[in-house]
């Protein structure tokens, strides 16, 4: 049963019931539009996904059109809502177990969620259009666009949800769509395995997340963010409980945002189509973990211990991924590791208790990382799905637009002024400088590594001489792919400037003392880039070979060893229990026990009738003795 409960926080400030009675039709209609508009953001992609799956799987062009129309509707609605000062959304009751659990279907419309909705739908729209070109000849185009629409629905759901239950459901739904899209080319074993790996690995984190949600609900009696926040103070006396809750909630982010030690799924997820890597595994879904932590910052920031652990996990992920990225040869994997590294920066900012810095980096990263992936996709398509960077080279003349946009993305990623990444990364570095010096040192080292591996990628792919025939004969991508690149390149350039970003975010305040921070960052940048240029100019093969990094620190091997032995141990224990306790003990024991008792008792059967009578008489005497005389 659902009922309209009321218009929460209406601009006019009148409750719906009295409002409907007293006002004119026009006003009422207007207000209804106002409160339904936010729901339209969610409903448009959902409708698209359903319609494509149910009706238009066969007509690829129609499916494509529906999906793109839906994402544009979402984008326009997000912009309209962003432009409005107040957030009014109709709220429904979904589950109402009186006194125990109330789950509303409601939307949060504050600065944070509005910005995120605009960002997600904007990047989503660009990537939908780019997919037109990238997936032009794909057999499963309808399936692809249906899943893409479902992803938009789920992702926008995470952004707008106003309670933990809705958040968790959408959270799982993006996990599912991510699974479907990684496994889009499911007939390739690598893609199918990567899809399974992504789904199962994130499930580990989600399990902790779910326990965290249940603990929050038990402690505060509510699952609505706005109701939990004021009740957190009642838990101030239980620091251990708060730490555990915060870390369990963080578990969800560790899985979804691919933080150490659950990061292993993200590089493999690159088996999916490149637009998917750009949208889901770089710009939006993996940032959902960061967004969620910012959304429930009142829980995370309630425990200093938890904050410290969060910050260090982010730092470890950042430096580890950057180290691994320096030795990878697959263009998409390098970008995947750079995504891990940048997500590490964001988590680090969350752990240093600055939501503004985390969201700022998320915002700029979404643009430049989507840009980098789409540019990489353009290269990959033009080279007939060749992803090994050593088979590229000299592409700057063949794909000028792709090259230019890739350079913009790369410069933003390494934090070169005046591109957007400089400002947001600088904000995080300044924050670390101010609050935790060891983390600052590691973050600075990561910045150096970032410059090194990004410039390495750039030099090998776009400069030098072409290393293969396909690289020699390639041409520029069609406009449907280059126009999104140009749009994203513009956004990646201006995204960090205060005059632009201030409209969307609360920018972190920088202190004057931190002038040393950008200076150090630029030094790291120059050293890193210089080293990469010196090492990789005019090379056709890898000059340095660090095996441990090329094998991703052997973490995959370690995990498969761990899983193998866990499974083996479990199997052996079960086999032991089955063989020796169930079979030998319960089944064999009862049969042998019965047999043994029978073997003893049959000795009594002597076949002498008078003997039996004698024993019988003795028995009677005994019974009489015990009955009468005792």
């Amino acid at each position: 049963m659902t009922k309209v409960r009321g218009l929460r926080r209406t601009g006019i400030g009148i409750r719906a019931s009295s409002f409907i009675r007293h006002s004119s039709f026009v006003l009422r209609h207007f207000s209804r539009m106002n409160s339904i508009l936010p729901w339209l953001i969610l409903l448009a992609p959902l409708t698209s996904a359903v319609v494509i799956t149910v009706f238009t799987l066969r007509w690829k062009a129609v499916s494509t059109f529906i999906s793109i129309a839906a994402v544009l509707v979402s984008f326009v609605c997000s912009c309209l809502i962003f432009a409005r000062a107040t957030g009014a959304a109709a709220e429904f009751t979904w589950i109402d177990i009186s006194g125990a659990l109330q789950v509303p279907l409601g939307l949060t419309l504050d600065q944070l969620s509005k910005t995120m909705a605009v960002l997600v739908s904007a990047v989503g729209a660009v990537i939908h259009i780019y997919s037109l070109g990238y997936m032009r000849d794909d057999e499963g185009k309808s399936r692809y666009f249906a899943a893409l629409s479902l992803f938009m629905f789920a992702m926008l759901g995470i952004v707008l949800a106003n309670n933990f239950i809705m958040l968790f459901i959408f959270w799982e739904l993006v996990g599912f769509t991510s699974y479907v899209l990684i496994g889009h080319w499911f007939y390739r074993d690598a893609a199918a395995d990567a899809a399974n790996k992504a789904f199962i690995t994130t499930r580990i984190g989600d399990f902790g997340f779910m326990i965290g949600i249940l603990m929050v609900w038990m402690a505060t009696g509510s699952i609505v963010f706005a109701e939990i926040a004021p009740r957190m103070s009642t838990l101030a006396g239980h620091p251990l409980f708060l730490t555990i809750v915060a870390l369990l909630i963080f578990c969800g982010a560790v899985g979804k945002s691919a933080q150490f030690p659950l990061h292993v799924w993200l590089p493999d997820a690159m088996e999916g189509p490149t637009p998917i890597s750009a949208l889901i595994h770089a710009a939006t879904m993996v940032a959902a973990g960061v967004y969620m932590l910012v959304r429930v910052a009142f829980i995370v920031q309630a425990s200093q211990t938890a904050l410290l652990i969060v910050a260090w996990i982010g730092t470890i992920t950042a430096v580890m991924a950057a180290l691994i990225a320096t030795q990878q040869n697959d263009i998409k994997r390098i970008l995947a590791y750079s995504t891990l590294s940048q997500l590490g920066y964001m988590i680090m900012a969350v752990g240093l208790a600055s939501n503004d810095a985390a969201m700022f980096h998320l915002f700029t990263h979404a643009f430049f990382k989507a840009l980098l992936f789409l540019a990489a996709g353009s290269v990959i398509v033009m080279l007939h799905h060749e992803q090994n960077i050593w088979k590229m080279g000299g592409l700057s003349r063949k794909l000028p637009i792709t090259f230019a946009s890739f350079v913009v993305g790369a410069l933003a990623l390494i934090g070169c002024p005046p591109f957007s990444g400089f400002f947001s990364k600088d904000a995080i570095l300044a924050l670390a400088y101010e609050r935790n010096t060891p983390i600052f040192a590691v973050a600075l080292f990561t910045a150096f590594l970032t410059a090194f591996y990004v410039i390495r990628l750039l030099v090998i792919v776009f400069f030098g001489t072409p290393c293969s025939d396909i690289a020699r004969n390639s041409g520029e991508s069609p406009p449907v792919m280059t126009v999104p690149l140009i749009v994203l390149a513009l956004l990646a350039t201006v995204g960090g400037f205060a005059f632009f970003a201030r409209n969307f975010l609360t920018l972190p305040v920088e202190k004057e003392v931190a002038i040393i921070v950008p200076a150090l960052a630029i030094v790291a940048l120059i050293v890193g880039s210089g080293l990469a240029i010196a090492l990789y100019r005019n090379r056709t093969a890898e000059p340095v070979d660090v095996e441990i990094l090329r094998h991703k620190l052997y973490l995959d091997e370690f995990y498969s060893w761990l899983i193998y032995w866990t499974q083996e141990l479990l199997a052996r224990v079960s086999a032991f229990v089955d063989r020796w306790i169930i079979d030998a003990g319960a089944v064999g024991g009862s049969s042998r026990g019965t047999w043994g008792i029978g073997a003893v008792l049959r000795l009594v059967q002597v076949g002498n009738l008078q003997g039996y009578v004698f024993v019988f008489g003795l028995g009677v005497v005994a019974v009489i003795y015990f009955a009468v005389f005792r």
Partner: protein
Amino acid sequence: MITLGDYLLVSAILFSIGFAGVMLRRNLIIILMSLELTLNAANLSLVAFSRFRVDPSGLPNYNAQVFVFFIITVAAAEVAVGLAILVALYRARQTTDVKDISQLKF
């Protein structure tokens, strides 16, 4: 004057003779007869108890005597079955000695 104790003494002697017969004799027919003797010892004690118990109304309690009739009836049926088995056994084995009928043993 014959007391309850005398009757019970006779009953006990009868039972002992019967039991001893069952235990010591080899012939199955004798054993069956001895069994009947033990039953009748029990009957005798039941009747004696009944005769010597007097209710407040002044009349003896006849329940036990009625019970004895039932026992006699059941004993008759038992003898019929027992003798029938005996006859069948004799036809099969040409013997009524318990020593020869000891197949059912370990």
